[in-house]
């Protein structure tokens, strides 16, 4: 039953990820990235991580990708001439390196003896908002609060980086 859902979702995620890399237009890449995020979120649901799946769609497919598309609109990239790069030695080496990283990860994690069935757990409560929330607010309360400080710092940093400097009275016209 799980396999019926897993294999199409895995193929969909891999296809979308490949299209992110291969498509020429950054806007289409962004749309394929949203598709990939949805496929990964569906995998989270299969793994009984319901809260994380919802957060994935809200934060990644929602907020982060809206930010990407917004910046793309501000950059106005379509007017830029797209130069075609030749398939050179550097590209081949890069692909080889990427595949090498993948093979290395598989070799490091490949354990045929690992149990294919999860350990005994209460599936009714595992991964719900209540369980994850209780975990975050008791065991890891301090990192949780630190995360909010990090978000505040990121907001301030983004504002400081994108602010246009106001011409001061003493400055020449800029």
């Amino acid at each position: 039953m799980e396999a019926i859902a897993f294999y199409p979702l895995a193929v969909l995620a891999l296809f979308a990820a490949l299209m992110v890399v291969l498509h020429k237009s950054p806007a289409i890449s962004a749309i394929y990235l949203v598709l990939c995020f949805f496929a990964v979120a569906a995998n989270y649901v299969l793994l009984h991580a319901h809260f994380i799946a919802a957060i994935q769609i809200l934060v990644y497919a929602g907020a982060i990708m809206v930010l990407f598309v917004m910046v793309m609109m501000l950059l106005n990239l379509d007017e830029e001439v797209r130069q075609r790069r030749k398939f050179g030695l550097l590209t081949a080496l890069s692909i080889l390196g990427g595949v090498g990283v993948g093979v290395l990860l598989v070799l490091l994690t490949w354990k045929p003896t690992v149990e294919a069935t999860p350990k005994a757990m209460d599936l009714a409560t595992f991964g719900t908002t209540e369980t994850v929330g209780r975990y975050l607010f008791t065991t890891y309360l301090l990192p949780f609060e630190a995360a909010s400080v990090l978000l505040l710092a990121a907001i301030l940093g983004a504002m400081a980086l994108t602010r246009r400097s106001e011409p001061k009275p003493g400055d020449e016209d800029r």
Partner: protein
Amino acid sequence: MLHVGLNHYLFLAAALFSIGVIGVLTRRNALVIFMCIELMINAANLAFIAFSYYLADISGQGFVFMSMVVAASEVAVGLAIILSLFRNKETVNVDEIRLMKW
């Protein structure tokens, strides 16, 4: 074959990560490179969730929550950097941005 185990999810995560690495290395548009980094973060998150389920331990999901917070702030600051870079250099092609290259 029809039984999906931990290894299947780890293979999927490794493949997604590998595609992200290839994208970072081959693409020249700073925005697309950034998207590929998101792809790699997602692959790592998937591995976390898979381990969390197969070991019946909720802490993997807590880690993914924190990782998403970091990814969100990273995107906010990174896109701001790309935006101010475009204002100064009129390009987002990483081949043409060589301020630090000597």
